[in-house]
């Protein structure tokens, strides 16, 4: 167990290093000079040089990278070009909003998609199920920003039930959450259906049914118990992806989260802020993945962490 944890942490560190390095290289390779964005309008070359020197962009690239890594080890990503304060702080200020949205979305997704998927598996290949099935395909076919705008037009502009943008009250979260959830429910409920149809057709279900186990226990106790691992894994992956992937929904609803921040940082070539955002979201995603993996033995007593051939 301890060995497993150490290996996992080492792998995670490697991923973090790989990601920040990839971003570092991409940022430096890209054409365009960030100094232009932060110098006074119509700058002289002396002014541009001054800005570059201030940001450390005048150093050779290898030098910049070593400085960057050195500071990173001390937990310092540098000062955001546009906010003139530590980039990490800027990101951490916005993080609670993104986490709140992601949490709300994943809870709603789990509450709806699991029963829905189980229902679809039990009614597989009936006319009613075909209707719901096509509905879930439609759910994964709509662009999320489009769903957002349609909801905004109906519920915020015309009906005025919810605030249109930003974070003003508790009701602000309803529409963004709804927007995210449509796709997630479609994906997860289809996964649940797939896993459950396989398990419901397994011989052990027939045996248990012959022994007089109730249909409800067959479904939830037997078949769902065996479908739990892939479903929880998928929920964890989706949650981790949301921590960095709700960019679009945040932009549509002007939700003051990390996603909105990073789009802006990209436009203004705010290198430290981009690095900080990527770093924070990758670390969070890795933590979520690790937590999900640690849950495996609880869901399936056959699983021993750190041994190959999990299933």
């Amino acid at each position: 167990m301890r060995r497993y944890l150490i290996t996992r942490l080492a792998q995670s560190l490697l991923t973090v290093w790989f990601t920040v390095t990839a971003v570092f290289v991409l940022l430096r390779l890209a054409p365009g000079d960030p100094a232009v964005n932060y110098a006074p309008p119509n700058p002289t070359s002396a002014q541009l040089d001054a800005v570059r020197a201030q940001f450390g962009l005048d150093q050779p690239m290898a030098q910049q990278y070593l400085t960057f890594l050195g500071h990173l080890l001390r937990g310092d990503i540098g000062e955001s070009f546009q906010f003139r304060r530590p980039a990490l702080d800027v990101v951490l200020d916005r993080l609670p909003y993104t986490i709140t949205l992601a949490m709300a979305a994943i809870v709603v997704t789990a509450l709806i998609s699991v029963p829905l998927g189980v229902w679809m598996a039990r009614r597989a290949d009936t006319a009613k199920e075909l209707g719901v099935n096509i509905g879930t395909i439609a759910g994964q076919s709509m662009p999320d920003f489009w769903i957002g705008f349609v909801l905004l037009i109906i519920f915020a502009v015309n009906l005025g039930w919810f605030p249109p943008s930003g974070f003003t009250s508790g009701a602000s979260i309803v529409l963004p959450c709804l927007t995210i959830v449509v796709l997630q429910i479609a994906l997860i409920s289809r996964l649940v259906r797939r896993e459950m149809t396989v398990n419901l057709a397994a011989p052990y279900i027939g045996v248990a049914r012959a022994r007089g186990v109730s249909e409800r226990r067959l479904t939830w106790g037997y078949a769902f118990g065996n479908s739990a691992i892939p479903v929880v894994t998928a929920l964890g992956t989706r949650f981790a992806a949301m921590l960095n992937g709700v960019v679009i929904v945040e932009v549509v609803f002007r939700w003051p989260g990390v996603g909105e921040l990073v789009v802006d940082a990209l436009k203004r070539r705010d290198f430290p802020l981009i690095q900080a955002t990527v770093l924070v979201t990758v670390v969070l995603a890795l933590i979520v993945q690790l937590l999900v993996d640690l849950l495996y033995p609880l869901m399936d007593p056959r699983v021993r962490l750190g041994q190959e051939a999990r299933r």
Partner: protein
Amino acid sequence: MNDLAIPARVLRGSAAARRARYSTIKMWVGGVCAGIVVLPVVFARVLPLPDPVRGALRETSLPPLSAGHLLGTDPNGRDLLSRILHGGQTSLLIGVLAIIVSGLIGVLAGAAAGYFGGWVDAAVSRLQEAQMSLPLLLMLLLVVALFGSSVPIITLVIAVAQWPEPARLTRALVLVEREKPYVAAARVLGLRRVEILARHIIPNVLSQVLVVVLLLLAQAVLLESALSFLGAGVQRPYPTWGGIIADGRELFVTGEWWLVTLPGAAIALLVLGVNLFGDGLRDRVRRAKAVQA
């Protein structure tokens, strides 16, 4: 017919027959949905449409179903239908190119990983894992924001994002396929390994992989629209679907709802069509393979 052990009526009602019928329904509905969008887009240049770039100054912000403008116009007097169809050409082009590239990379990498195993397999798998742990949309945005939004860059970016899925499937299928007797027979006949893989194994798994690649077209169109919505899309010659929506996003508050909803409906209809068609096709291919086996 009554002397059959199982009457035709019962056979028709069986789960297998229903599944076959439902997959046909899905393919038809999907094909029609996709066709409604694809055909006009392909023939946009031939159709009698107003200019998508130059608008008429007297015809600004007309609602849909106005005379001469089926889907209305934007504040610059540009015809929305014309913009959607012309912009859709770029969206579709990128989508199709992207799945060709990702399909090629995926099939080759997956087949090599499955057939040769060893370090090839390890390398491909590690690469996939490394990519899975990256924040996808963020990285795509980063690359496009930094290297500019041209058709090749966006195509490549989407293809790179998508190759793991066909690769994983191809690898799994090849792992099963390479143990079959005909592969052993081919080796006994003295065929080279690359030859066996390219001429015998890949053709046998291709039908199943192609369905997944077709389904990737839906993802590619969605991804492209997301990128161009965030301002990282192709701007020339016409803004793509996501770009049209981004142009209209400030305007729905003042009542011009059609500028964001209708282009999005085009995306949704196309993607739904591709997804339904692919889903039905997948059922069918899987059944055909099951019968063969």
